[in-house]
Structure formats: structure tokens, C-alpha cells
């Protein structure tokens, strides 16, 4: 994957400039006693978290147990009932972009116009971003003619065209077929390694978490129940013994909650 010269000049130009003029590629993320309740039910219970710039963090957990709420609170789409979210150190405000489970493309705009959303004079940058995700031939198409995987690639291009320092991914690959999912994981990993932004991925797929993340968090009953560092070499080999060990370890921990927790408190709402 080659960096286009326009991209490097844009990165240097406006976005990603720290206070000392140096290129800031990833943002700090700090959560302090973050809490959220829905209709009396505690979804997030005083979560403390520190994520360093450039880290790739995966958040796993059963359906309905707060991981999406956590991500949305970081994105500012939900107002927390307590605690605070702090993104970035001093200097300029870091760019935060989010990918959703559905691509959420505007059906009445072409692929190129969708990628250039919110970017004044963004046609060239959008073209480059689409080339980076391998869709340079589909710029003039309507979203309705694209497949699910292609739509998510457009959504990825749309997120990355803003050169974000923090990229939030809310189960973006959940609706895709297995092969497309693997390709998208490789694409996301490659772009992340190239640009070095901080990434927080929410996923129900433990294998996906082990493939992509430096660090896996398990959210259970509104708290972080597991914080596991994954120190496998990149790019990750799915079949390797070490990979399998990590995956089994996390999976066991995730599933172990069901036996004890479900009986005592009732299943989490999907």
C-alpha cells in the first residue's frame, strides 16, 4: 500500500499538527469513572481506561452488555451520566471518526460524494481514499448498486479521508460474509499500520479481536473484566499455535460468564 504524495502533504498541512508542529498520528484516550444508565439499568459502571496513541484496542463481550454504549460515549453520541471522556493531549483537537455496523452511506449521493462528506473541496482526497480501499473504479456509482463489503469499504474510506487520530469501529464487519470479513480485516490492519491512528474496535467475534488488536478488553456487567495484551507479531497468522492460545483464552473467559451470570441475573438483552 503506497502513500500518495497528496496524502502526506495534507497530513502535514492542517490535520494532525501537535503543539510543537510535529505530526501527531494517534490520539490519547482517557476514560475516568465513565458511567451510563438506561431506564434504571446500569450499562457502564465507573469505567477507567487509558489508551496510548497508536494502540489498537478491541472490546469484546456478549450482546447488549455495554460495549457499543462505551464506544458511542467515546464518540460523543451518548452523554454519560457520570465521569468523563478525554481525547488527545494538548494542542489541536484530534479528529475522531466512527464506522458503524451498517455502512450508513447517503443513498442519494455517489460513492465519491459520500466519501467527501464534510470535507470542503474533498474530491481529490476522496479519490485517493477510495483508491486506498481498492474502489477507484466505482467512484461514480450509487451506493445501492454496491455489495455489503464494498459499502463498508466506502465507509472506511469516508472515515479515513479526514485523517483521524482516533478511529472508532462499532462492529463494522458483523454483517459481512466470512471471506469479505477476512479481506476487510487485512485492509483495516494494513491502513492502521501505515497511518498509526488509535483504533477502538467493538466486536462480538473473538477471532477478529485477536487478529487486529494489541489489547483486548472484555466488558461484562458494565465493567472491564479482562484487559489482555496480545503481543503476537504482525501480520497475524490465524492458524498459529500462539494465536489459537490467545483466542481460546479470551473465548473461555467470555463464555465463562454465561454459566454463573445468566442464572443469577438473567441474560443480557440483545
Amino acid at each position, binding site marked *: 500500500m503506497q502513500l500518495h504524495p497528496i496524502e502526506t502533504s495534507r497530513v502535514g498541512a492542517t490535520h494532525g499538527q501537535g503543539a510543537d508542529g510535529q505530526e501527531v498520528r494517534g490520539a490519547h484516550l482517557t476514560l475516568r469513572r465513565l458511567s451510563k444508565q438506561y431506564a434504571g439499568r446500569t450499562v457502564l459502571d465507573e469505567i477507567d481506561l487509558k489508551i496510548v496513541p497508536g494502540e489498537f484496542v478491541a472490546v469484546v463481550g456478549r450482546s447488549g452488555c455495554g460495549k457499543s454504549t462505551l464506544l458511542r460515549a467515546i464518540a460523543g453520541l451518548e452523554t454519560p451520566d457520570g465521569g468523563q471522556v478525554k481525547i488527545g493531549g494538548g494542542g489541536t483537537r484530534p479528529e475522531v471518526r466512527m464506522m458503524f455496523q451498517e455502512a450508513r452511506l*447517503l443513498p442519494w449521493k455517489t460513492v465519491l460524494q459520500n466519501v467527501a*462528506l464534510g470535507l470542503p473541496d474533498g474530491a481529490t482526497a476522496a479519490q485517493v481514499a477510495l483508491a486506498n480501499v481498492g474502489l477507484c473504479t466505482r467512484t461514480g456509482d450509487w451506493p*445501492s448498486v454496491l455489495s455489503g463489503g464494498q459499502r463498508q469499504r466506502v465507509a472506511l474510506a*469516508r472515515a479515513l479521508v479526514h485523517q483521524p487520530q482516533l478511529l472508532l469501529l462499532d462492529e463494522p464487519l458483523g454483517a459481512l460474509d466470512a471471506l469479505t470479513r477476512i479481506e476487510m480485516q487485512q485492509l483495516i490492519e494494513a491502513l492502521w499500520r501505515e497511518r498509526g491512528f488509535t483504533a477502538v474496535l467493538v466486536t462480538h467475534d473473538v477471532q477478529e479481536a485477536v487478529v487486529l488488536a494489541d489489547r483486548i478488553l472484555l466488558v461484562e456487567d458494565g465493567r472491564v473484566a479482562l484487559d489482555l495484551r496480545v503481543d503476537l507479531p504482525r501480520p497475524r497468522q490465524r492458524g498459529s499455535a500462539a494465536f489459537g492460545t490467545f483466542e481460546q483464552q479470551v473465548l473461555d473467559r467470555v463464555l465463562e460468564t454465561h454459566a454463573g451470570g445468566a442464572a443469577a441475573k438473567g441474560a443480557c438483552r440483545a
Partner: protein
Amino acid sequence: MGAPSSTAARPIASAVAPQAARSAPALRRRAVAWLAPLAPWALPVLLVVIWQVAAQVGWLSSRILPEPWAVAKAFWMLAESGELWTHLRVSLWRALAGFGLGAALGLVLGLLNGSSRRAALLLDTTVQMVRNIPALALIPLVILWFGIDEAAKLFLLSVGVFFPVYLNTFHGIRSVDAGLVEMARSYGLSGWALYRDVILPGALPSILVGVRFSLGLVWVLLIVAETISAQAGIGYMTMNAREFLQTDVVLVGVLLYALLGKAADLAARGLERHFLRWNPAYR
């Protein structure tokens, strides 16, 4: 990608038998492609033919239903004398003005109430109450308020056109995909840009349904409005002809309304095809 032998065989086969290219399946396809656009007209044409035959043979009295040929002749005479164009122009102006006013008001109020909960709280109940009064039942009141000239007709047309446009616009704005709005907000769109790029296009399919419905409705209301003592217009021409038992002219009037309604519907479809060309359902 078949074996090389099969791809080599195909060009040879067509070179040997060029006439085979105009074989039965190809001919049938060409015939279907040529006849298909005519299919919707087959039934009306058949009916007209039956009608003409029935009139000529004597089953149909010319006072009840004159033959198609007589209607055509009346049409021609009115066109030649210029009367037809005068009436047509007046009716068209009324329809356009009434539609324009009613649709514009319906659009503005629908956008307002759809976007602002406070406005909807204040205004929607009133609108719904007025909606349930049939526009045509207001005629006596309208005559009292506006007299019997153009203002009365304009009022009736506008009131009738207002409600479908208002309801559909309101519904369209309310049913814009909230996920898209959330996404757009998170990408920095707000205010006018959000409205222009997300909310209005999202509401447009519904708005166009309201417009299309109103475009059809305006002709129905026009017929009635033009009977409230008019001096010109297709309704006047038709009413006048009825007084003089010129049933062929009456039929010309009816036919004109049908053609104008069809033309308006085509215009609405054209709007849909342009503004909704991104939607596979409208292609």
C-alpha cells in the same frame, strides 16, 4: 471461459449461416420490443373502435353518447376557432396557480412541523381538524367570502392541494433514517448543510408522493371550481355545451381533463425519475 475449441466454433457457425441470426427467437424479440410500448393502448383503442361501430350501427343514440368521429370533429372545430385554446389556457392557469399556492404552503408547513417538535405541537392538531372538512363542502362559504370570481376558485384549489402535500412532507421529514442523521452529525454536518444533504433528500420520496397525488387532485377540484359561475375554462365550456345539448363538446371537455391529468402524471413521474434516480425502485 470454455475450451478453445468451442470459442473457435462459434464464429465459424455464424459465418456459415448469417441468415440464422434472423432466426425465430431473434425475430420474436424484435417484434416484442416494437409492440411492447403499444400494449397499454390496445384496450383503449379497442374500446373506441367498439364505440364507433356501436354508434354507426345505431345501438347508441347520439344524444346519449355521440360517436368518436363526432367528438373528433367537435375537437377540430373548437381548435380551429381558437375557443379551445382560450379555455385551455384559462384552465391551465387556474390549475397551475392553485397547485403552486397549495403545494408551496403544504411544503413549507410540512417542513416546519416535521422538523420542529414545538411547531408541530402548536400547529398540527389545527391542520388535522381543518383537513377533515371536505374542500367541496366549503363551496357555499367560499362563495360568501370570495364571491364568484378567480379568488374563490384559487382558494378551493389551494385548500384541496395543500393537505396531501402537507401530510406527505410531514411524514417524509419524520421518517428520515435517524442513523443517517447521526452519521452526518458525527461527520460535522449541521444546520443548513445537514438539511440540504440528508434530511431533504431523505424526505423527498414522500414529498414527491404528495406532489403526485396533488397533481391528480387539482383536476378533479378544477372541474368543480369551474362550475361556480365561470366565464371561461374547460368546465365552463363543458357546462355551456350541456345547456345546449352539445354532448360532443361535453365529451371534448371530459377528454381534455383526462389528457391534462395524464400529462400532469407524466410530469410527476419525470420529477421522480430525475430526483430519485439513485433509488433502484424508481429506475
